[in-house]
């Protein structure tokens, strides 16, 4: 027993030293090292626990398979009679406990460090919606939604899939490097979860409550993550994309975003032609409606009604405005897009659907303008 322990300890040191931790770095077999101090600490902790488990496995399975081989009845082994050994049992129980203590110490250290409650330089409210993320920069007052940008045609195998299949969004979360970013995370409807593997940030987005997370990214780049809590049908289709840039670039981006918001506000006043509305509406439809109502407008009845040939879409524009603005119950079957999309988007997508597919010939093809939506908001709701 003493001899065994002697060898085991020395072998352990030798092997742990020999095998470089970078062995699995580039294969898609392993966790990412990430780009932050926290993510690297977590990666190293993961590898430590992993190797300890491997070595325990080698020893335990080694003894087991050796016993299965050496003590085969077919090779004449005669069974011994012992059925306990008090000190051996105490011994391996203590060894097991010590190994766990050795694991618990670095684990505690890494966790305590991750629970940093000090002030953030930039605070971003992250809200999980079904099925997109909303980002609200508290200091700079920039707010926008971030939708999956992958074409539904690719998802349904009608066109080839790009390299960034399911990992791309229309508006990424842009942050400056070397800045402490604090995330305030909540959910709008059901529980979602905000995960960026390269930052080792994962926190659930719970409706009614705020969770916080923080990061400080030293390296510019694009970092991609996912929603990691089942949130309904498009759980797999609401990725997170973060673009970390130099501080000057961030400042320029904020200015651009504020300017863009102003431009959108002005667009509400403009006189739109029917063709312009339809063109814009198709884009809005592809981004926001296709998942449920499908590209061909046929939906997935009975859960997602068909728009193509729908009485409301063909003949009842005011009802369609109401549905878009306020949503449809029960159980929030359709969200109230009025709070999520601007007047231009709502008007154009309505106009598009009234003039798409067979609705073009069969329906009234009525045009709904942004001004109509503004009126609606003033008159009725929102």
């Amino acid at each position, binding site marked *: 027993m003493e001899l065994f322990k002697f060898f085991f300890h020395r072998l352990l040191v030798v092997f742990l030293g020999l095998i470089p931790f970078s062995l699995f770095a580039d294969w898609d077999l392993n966790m990412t090292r990430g780009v932050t101090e926290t993510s690297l600490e977590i990666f190293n902790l993961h590898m430590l626990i992993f190797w300890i488990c491997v070595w325990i496995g080698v020893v335990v399975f080694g003894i087991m398979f050796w016993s299965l081989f050496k003590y085969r009845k077919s090779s004449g082994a005669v069974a011994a009679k012992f059925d306990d050994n008090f000190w051996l049992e105490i011994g391996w129980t203590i060894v097991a406990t010590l190994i766990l203590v050795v694991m618990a110490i670095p684990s505690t250290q890494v966790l305590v460090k991750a629970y940093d409650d000090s002030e953030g330089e930039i605070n971003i409210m992250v809200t999980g919606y079904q099925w997109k993320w909303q980002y609200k920069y508290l*200091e700079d007052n920039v707010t926008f939604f971030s939708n999956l940008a992958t074409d539904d045609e690719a998802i349904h195998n009608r066109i080839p899939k790009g390299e960034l299949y399911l990992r791309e969004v229309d508006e990424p979360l842009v942050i400056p490097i070397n800045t402490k970013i604090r995330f*305030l995370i909540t959910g709008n409807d059901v529980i979602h979860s905000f995960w960026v593997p390269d930052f080792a940030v994962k926190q659930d987005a719970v409706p009614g*409550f705020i969770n*916080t997370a923080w990061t400080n990214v030293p390296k510019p780049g694009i970092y991609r993550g996912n929603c990691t809590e089942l949130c309904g049908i498009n759980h797999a289709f609401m990725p997170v994309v973060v673009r970390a840039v130099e501080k000057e670039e961030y400042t320029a981006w904020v200015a651009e975003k504020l300017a863009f918001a102003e431009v959108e506000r002005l667009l509400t006043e403009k006189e739109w032609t029917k063709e312009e509305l339809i063109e814009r509406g198709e884009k809005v439809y592809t981004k926001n409606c296709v998942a449920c109502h499908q590209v061909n407008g046929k939906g997935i009845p009975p859960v997602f009604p068909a728009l193509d040939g729908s009485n409301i879409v063909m003949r009842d524009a005011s009802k369609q405005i109401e549905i878009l603005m306020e949503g449809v119950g029960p159980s929030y079957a359709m969200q109230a897009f009025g*709070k999520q999309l601007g007047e231009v988007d709502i008007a154009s997508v309505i106009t598009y659907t009234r003039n798409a597919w067979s609705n073009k010939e069969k329906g009234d093809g009525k045009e709904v303008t942004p001004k109509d939506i503004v009126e609606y908001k003033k008159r009725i709701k929102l």
Partner: protein
Amino acid sequence: MGKTVRNLILSTLGMFAFGFLLVPIYDVFCEITGLNGKVTGPSYMSEESKGILDKREVLVQFVTHNNESMPWTFESQVTQVRVNTGEQQEALFIFENTTDEDMIGQVIPSVSPGRGAQYFHKTECFCFESQFLKSGQRVELPVRFIIDPAMPKDIGSLSLGYTLFDITKSTEERSLAGL
């Protein structure tokens, strides 16, 4: 044998009751630990805390969210403010019912980090009760609070999240049911 069966049946019923007891146990636990920032500290400061004279500056952020696109306008007048611990503070919030129907809203607060929640004393808050607004009505309501000077120094900022829910329908249902 009958005794065994009787005891097991009683244990089963007991564990069923325990399941429901978990609800108040959870609330108490949240109060003590500040879990989820659900429950803020008592509305008063303890005598001990009142005795702490040195102040420090804390950044307080206000974030609002309309759950499920609840139609009202709901905003804080300022998104963040730097305050001293131990001093009475006030923050104003704007509520506007922009719809053509009377509605009832409920604001649910959430403080982050959770362990800071017990040091956040609210003397007045619109979240204490539901808010009835007639169609078109606009009000400005305050949150009055004091941050306890005993709050650990490693908490540099507190985020107050307020989520506004539409409880018009559920309030109607409850009154119809006689609740």
